[in-house]
């Protein structure tokens, strides 16, 4: 039998249903791949093979009795941000180092209810704060891709670096991820995988470790656009346990894949042509425009005048919300508590200082500062008002177009231990320049691999849709996927 780990989610689910192979066989294939390669890639921070074997056996019984559900028997990886009942969940922070949730996140519960199999928990930046996966307490993930002729280890991006690397290295059929400023789309672009962040409120945040609640949104990282549609379908649901979860019907996402885009108006925002962006990124963007034109879409110039203010706005709003969300880690009810300390304040301060990493502490302090007396209006309220302007930009632009096409990232994957980015936090933050706007506006955004750069590394294009219009995003993305014919895989060194 050919290597089962190379299958797409769609092909695997179909193969299982038609009994070409069993979930037990498929699961063992992934366990073998993970055992052999994960020590080098570090995508999984915890494997749950016993549980996977149990779930696979249950799925095989259901398939035999003709009761297969949408994801029956499909082995997936779960970002360590999702609370999984009885399975260690840390958000890759020392402060949650031994946390065993007594409850299940709604997104993962939805997956188990559809018959999915859990292979383990995937690495990420600590509390999803990072763009290179280097802030993880469990160490960085290594991108399966390497530049041609170089052995240097590259970042898979972040924060969902483990999810993206696991999909690229065939350590799972597909993975859950999450996106607060680009944490699904940037890693997908860096690893030649597909990722979608749906409209804010499509998926429940219950049981997702909170970073910035008004921006956080769940989504999948997969091998194909169709796989993203399939996994997104199961992840999303209305949930009374999340007051911002939308109580509206879900469309059949997969039905939009492969649909004609003839006559659709594609907005091209001038403000995304940044100074200092590699010519290759611009060329890829032009290529994407051409592909959509060839498919019968109409190209429209649009303006999103407040684009350059999105990142500074984000770096007020997100840390402010994070400083509040992370106040719960006090060393009293769960998580790390400093030892040999007696006073209350000392215990709080030392537990938190020992438990949080450098970037997380930096963001808590920024958030505390912009919310503190005397600065609240000047920073926080100001940022909320600029956020309104950014959202209005999109509303205005969507009068003239149906969907927006942009590059996904300002570069291909960079080196782990990049000293310039380590020395200057703002340089690292600029990774999210093309993705962060949709989080602020709450819109769906998707990254599709569209080609390789001159170093032989993947580059992605981003499709941004109107609120709740993931369908059109998926149609456009699937045209790009077909046109790009991106079938390259990293050459195996792990």
């Amino acid at each position, binding site marked *: 039998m050919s290597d089962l780990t190379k299958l797409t989610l769609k092909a695997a689910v179909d193969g299982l249903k038609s009994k070409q192979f069993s979930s037990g066989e498929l699961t063992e294939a992934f366990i073998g791949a993970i055992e052999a390669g994960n020590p080098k890639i570090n995508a999984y921070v915890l494997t749950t093979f016993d549980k996977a074997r149990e779930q696979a056996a249950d799925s095989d019984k259901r398939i035999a009795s003709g009761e297969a559900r949408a994801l029956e028997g499909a082995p997936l990886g779960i970002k360590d941000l999702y609370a999984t009942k009885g399975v260690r969940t840390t958000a890759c922070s020392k402060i949650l180092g031994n946390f065993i949730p007594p409850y299940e996140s709604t997104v993962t519960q939805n997956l188990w209810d559809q018959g999915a199999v859990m292979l383990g928990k995937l690495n990420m930046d600590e509390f999803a704060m990072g763009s290179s996966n280097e802030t993880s307490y469990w160490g960085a993930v290594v991108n399966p891709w390497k530049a041609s002729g170089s052995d240097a280890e590259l970042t898979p991006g972040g924060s969902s670096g483990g999810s993206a690397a696991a999909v690229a290295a065939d350590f799972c059929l597909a993975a859950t991820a999450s996106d607060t400023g680009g944490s699904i789309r940037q890693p997908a672009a860096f690893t030649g995988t597909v990722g979608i962040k749906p409209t804010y409120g499509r998926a429940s945040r219950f049981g997702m470790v909170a970073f910035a609640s008004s*921006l956080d949104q769940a989504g999948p990282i997969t091998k194909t656009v169709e796989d993203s549609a399939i996994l997104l379908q199961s992840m999303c649901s209305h949930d009374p346990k999340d007051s911002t979860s939308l*109580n509206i019907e879900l469309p059949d996402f997969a039905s939009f894949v492969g649909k004609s885009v003839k006559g659709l108006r594609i907005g091209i925002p001038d403000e995304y042509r940044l100074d200092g962006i590699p010519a290759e990124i611009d060329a890829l963007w032009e290529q994407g425009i051409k592909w959509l034109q060839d498919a019968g879409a109409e190209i429209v110039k649009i303006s999103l005048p407040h684009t350059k203010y999105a990142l500074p706005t984000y*770096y007020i709003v997100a840390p402010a919300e994070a400083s509040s969300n992370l106040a719960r880690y006090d060393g009293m009810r769960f998580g790390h508590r400093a030892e040999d300390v007696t006073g209350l304040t000392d*215990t709080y*301060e030392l537990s938190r200082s020992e438990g*949080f990493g450098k970037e997380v502490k930096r963001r808590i*302090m920024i958030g505390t500062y912009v919310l503190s007396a005397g600065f609240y209006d000047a920073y926080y309220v100001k940022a909320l008002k600029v956020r309104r302007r950014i959202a209005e930009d999109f509303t205005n632009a969507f009068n003239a177009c149906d969907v927006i096409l942009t590059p996904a990232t300002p570069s291909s994957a960079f080196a782990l231990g990049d000293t310039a980015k380590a020395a200057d936090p703002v340089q690292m933050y600029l990774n999210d320049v093309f993705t962060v706007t949709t989080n602020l506006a709450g819109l769906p955004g998707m990254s599709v691999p569209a080609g390789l750069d001159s170093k032989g590394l993947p580059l992605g294009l981003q499709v941004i849709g109107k609120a709740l219009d993931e369908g059109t995003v998926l149609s456009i993305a699937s045209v790009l996927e077909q046109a790009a014919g991106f079938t390259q895989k990293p050459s195996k060194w792990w």
Partner: protein
Amino acid sequence: MAIDVATVKKVASLSRLREADERLESLAGELNGILGWIEQLNEVDVSDAQPMTSAVEVAAPLRNDVVSDGNKVADVVSNAPKTVDGFFVVPKVVE
């Protein structure tokens, strides 16, 4: 408005974080770098803009005020660093 070492100390204390003295200087530099970059927001005219606090314009949902969950003492304390008889053990708060 530049952040000095004293401000870093104050913000750290408000954040319930303790930073080593030798880290304060470099932290002040990092925070100033980030806040300086954020200053560009002052270029934006927001005089008539309403603050945007949520990405979805929906009213907060209501539910009946009835007990929906509970009686899970063992679950609640299962991850606590220190417990006795189903209670959290915390440092002395009042002398």
